[in-house]
């Protein structure tokens, strides 16, 4: 690294800091948003992997990440059980509501505990199963995060009071569960459910079972439970687009910030550039000198960006229960944005500097 580069950067600490923060902001945007998206997806995936039923039987369009309806008649349970290859079927209402922390989503499930627990091999580790219309059970994570005690009252659906009567394990689906009847009551959806979990008999594959259900009960939505988590990105409309826009945005921010900084730098140092030319510095030398300065700023910005993103992510995780999971892929994208944005942003000022007329630059005041 040319000592001129380091000396120049040290000379204008404020400008350097602003450029560094510009790059760091880009890294923050990319890391936090993609970290949140994949953290939430992974969390859902982990919880849904504890569901042992192979098939999720529902009405088309009744389940989305941000909303769901209870429009499936529970009498389908009996019809499903009658189909050859079905070992068991149990109805669930999924209710999605705005998270208590003000962002994110909170999910509640109404289940028939006995059959649900039997199918998914779940058990109560503390307290007992819910039975009355105002009773819920939670998983261990929920209990720990919200510091819940047995018999503690919590508010759901805005202002309805519920009592925590037990803790179940393993984690699966929504962290708060109540009886199907209680949920039907709360949502005024008697006799309805959101979906029915269907377990295959031994020796029957998920695909075979799906085909049979499709044949017997056409027009419904038959989903393999193992596909659900991979559907996460698709289930939030425009999430992929949103992430791409974000990446583009942070690339633009990094590029512009560095371009601006380098532009003012070369204007300020016009006479020095003239002197470099008088000393015999080639166009390449001048361009590379300025590029190095930009890249140094980028690298510092990247380091600070990663540190602040991880710290902010950890803080948000702690206070909101949102989960961040960073991937190498997106980290590399952030690095590429920082370096590429820096190099690209500096390219125009650098070529301009290299193209300056030596005599005019030397005469610059």
């Amino acid at each position, binding site marked *: 690294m*040319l000592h*001129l580069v380091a000396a*120049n950067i040290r000379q204008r600490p404020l400008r350097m800091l602003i450029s560094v923060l510009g790059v760091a902001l880009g890294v923050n945007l990319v890391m936090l948003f993609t970290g949140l998206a994949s953290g939430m997806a992974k969390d859902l995936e982990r919880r849904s992997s504890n569901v042992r039923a192979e098939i999720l039987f529902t009405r088309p369009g009744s389940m989305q990440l941000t909303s769901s309806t209870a429009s499936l008649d529970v009498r389908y349970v009996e019809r499903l059980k009658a189909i050859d290859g079905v070992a068991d079927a149990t109805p669930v209402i999924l209710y999605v509501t705005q998270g208590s922390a003000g962002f994110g989503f909170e999910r509640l499930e109404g289940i028939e505990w006995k059959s649900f627990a039997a199918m998914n091999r779940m058990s109560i580790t503390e307290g007992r199963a819910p039975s009355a219309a105002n009773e819920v059970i939670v998983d261990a994570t929920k209990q720990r995060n919200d510091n819940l005690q047995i018999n503690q009252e919590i508010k759901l659906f805005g202002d309805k009071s519920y009592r925590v009567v037990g803790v179940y394990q393993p984690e699966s689906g929504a962290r708060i569960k109540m009886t199907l009847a209680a949920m039907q009551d709360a949502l005024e959806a008697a006799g309805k459910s959101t979906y029915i979990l269907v377990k295959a008999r031994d020796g029957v594959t998920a695909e075979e079972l799906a085909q049979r259900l499709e044949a017997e009960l056409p027009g419904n939505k038959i989903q393999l439970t193992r596909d659900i988590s991979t559907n996460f990105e698709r289930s939030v409309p425009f999430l992929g687009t949103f992430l791409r826009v974000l990446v583009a945005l942070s690339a633009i921010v990094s590029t512009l910030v560095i371009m601006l900084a380098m532009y003012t730098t070369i204007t300020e140092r016009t006479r020095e550039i003239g002197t*470099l030319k*008088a*000393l015999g510095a080639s166009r390449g030398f001048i361009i590379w000198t300025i590029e190095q300065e930009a890249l140094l700023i980028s690298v510092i910005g990247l380091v600070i960006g990663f540190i602040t993103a991880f710290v902010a992510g950890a803080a948000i995780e702690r206070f909101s229960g949102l989960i961040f999971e960073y991937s190498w892929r997106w980290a590399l994208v952030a690095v590429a944005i920082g370096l590429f944005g820096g190099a690209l942003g500096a390219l125009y000022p650098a070529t301009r500097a290299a193209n300056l007329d030596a005599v005019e630059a030397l005469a610059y005041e």
Partner: protein
Amino acid sequence: MKTILRAENLYKTYRVGSVDVHALRDVSLEVEEGEFVAIMGPSGCGKSTLLHLLGGLLQPTSGRITVDEEDLSAASDAARTDIRRRKIGFVFQRFNLFPTLTAEGNLRLAEQIQSKNNTDDATRRTEVLKLLRLEDKMKHKPMELSGGEQQRVAVARAIITNPALILADEPTGNLDSENSAIVLNMLQELNYRFNQTIVMITHNPEAAAMCRRIVYMRDGQITTPAVSVQISG
């Protein structure tokens, strides 16, 4: 004796709007190795223009320039820069040191641009610094040096890479008489001790008197004969 610099029939015309300014008109000049030449003349007569042409910072409108056997006037911009890098050291009236670098850093930058060969001459380097009495100023930034000291650093920067030719445009123009004398003495000593070829523009007759030859210019033309006339120093 070897001819370091040969300028033949140089013309330089600037176009300002629709007016042609003839800054140089048929200028020819030869400088032998080890000469110390002063260029004098009234303001606006074309001295700086000539020096910029000789250093390859400008292209002549017509005419030919060779520096140490390399043809500057026929070269592309990049090739002229390369010849300048290898053959020429500039000294300016306003010193033009890099303010963010120490004296040593300024010298090092020149060496980095030079990059090839020539820099292995450590004895020359120490001798130069000793001659310019800069040994204890190496860690200072330009702002922490007097004008005279800054110009000495600039001279050191110009010669550290061992150029065939030094071009100086009013090197004492920003200095008081005492510092002028110091810098001029040093240039003279470089000329004697290392046989360094120097072409220097000056308005100061005393400075010119220290040179081996004076070239007078007027209205874009040289008024003294182009051939070397030795003035005993």
